[in-house]
């Protein structure tokens, strides 16, 4: 029990460190990848909401600790995104196919980005500190790049999981 909790804490810390320090510094637009969101969607799809919720709280808390945005923004946005993803998973994407995961990653990326941008803008409207929302070409390009990279990451992770485990392989019922 405790070893499992410890292992999960280590994995959460590793994921946050990779996202904040490694991915953020990558060249050629690779820094737009939101690996955290993609991993959370796979956890939600492969395990359950309970497990994904604890991961979300852990990751959100760490992101808020290292962020200079008002505390709780990441926690709130990530949690709301996961709740919406869970709803979509139980209502619309009931099978665990590649297309389901891609659609889910696409949907959650859009939801997460809209939430973060909207809340960030609201905070700026109140505080008037830092840079406000600049909807220029580079903003839209960065969002498009993020969507593309997240989908590519989801594709790679899906095939990787299919290769190492049987959880995502299609099940055929044979008639005897």
């Amino acid at each position, binding site marked *: 029990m405790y070893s499992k909790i410890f292992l999960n804490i280590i994995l959460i810390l590793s994921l946050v*460190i990779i996202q*904040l320090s490694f991915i*953020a*510094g990558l*060249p050629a637009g690779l820094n737009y990848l939101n690996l955290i969101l993609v991993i959370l969607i796979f956890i939600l799809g492969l395990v359950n909401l309970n497990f994904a919720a604890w991961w979300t709280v852990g990751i959100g808390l760490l992101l808020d*600790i290292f962020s200079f945005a008002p505390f709780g*923004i990441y926690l709130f946005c990530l949690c709301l995104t996961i709740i919406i993803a869970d709803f979509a998973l139980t209502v619309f994407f009931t099978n665990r196919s590649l297309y389901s995961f891609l659609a889910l990653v696409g949907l959650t990326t859009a939801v997460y980005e809209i939430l973060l941008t909207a809340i960030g803008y609201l905070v700026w409207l109140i505080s008037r500190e830092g840079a406000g929302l600049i909807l220029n070409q580079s903003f839209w390009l960065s969002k498009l790049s993020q969507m593309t990279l997240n989908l590519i990451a989801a594709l790679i992770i899906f095939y990787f999981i299919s290769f190492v485990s049987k959880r995502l392989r299609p099940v055929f019922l044979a008639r005897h």
Partner: protein
Amino acid sequence: MQKTGTKKLAIFMAVIGLLIFLHITRVLIPVESFITGILRPLLSGFYSVSSSVRATYNEQTSKEDLFARIKQLESHANQLTVENAKLKMLEQENQILRQYLKFSAKSKQNYVLCNIISRGRIDNPVMQGIIIDRGAKDGLFPGLAVVSGQGIIIGKIIAVKNNIAEVYLITNQACKLAAVMQNQNKTSGIIQGELGLTVRMEFIPQTEKIKIGGLVVTSGLERGIPRGLVIGKVNQIIKESNELWQSAIIEPLVDFDELTIVSVLLP
């Protein structure tokens, strides 16, 4: 089934609410400090790896321009050697004059060396900023100048936490600095980042004569930012007869992509 889902959702939201409450009441601050403190070396290590990947990538993509750049740098180095010789003479002269005038030797600027641990923001990677591994505990506060190894200003501190600080690079649209040109009239203006790539110097009177290639430095009019820190060189002059002011595009002298260690100048 639906009841269980609502219950889970309520627990989920309660945990988030509790964490935010604990942060607001500052109960969580020691935990946050502990986590940032313990993870700083790891973050800095990962950033170094990422930075070397970026440097290799940039090196590969810019190889074509390398020869032209070498020639340009050679001629620049020659100019600098001559300039350096002149400055050394001036320094010696200055030292003698100071002794004569019984000036106390100016103490060297205090600074704090910092590792960069992250770039941009996860919600806005376009944001031209860095996060450094020193914070309020090390005496940092918003408004202090951040310089590269060569002493060129790269940005200023915007926000601090106990163990980390956020720096806006000079190319960030939200970063403004009081600057002065090193020309005869010491033209002053305000520099502001533009599109995350260059810097624009605004509010230069139309009557001022500015030259392309002229050096722009900090004016020292802001608290926490000393005078004379190099910002960049004038790359383009934008002058329109119907405007009250003219502006100049300043090219920063530092490649922000290659930075892994920076210094914060303390007052």
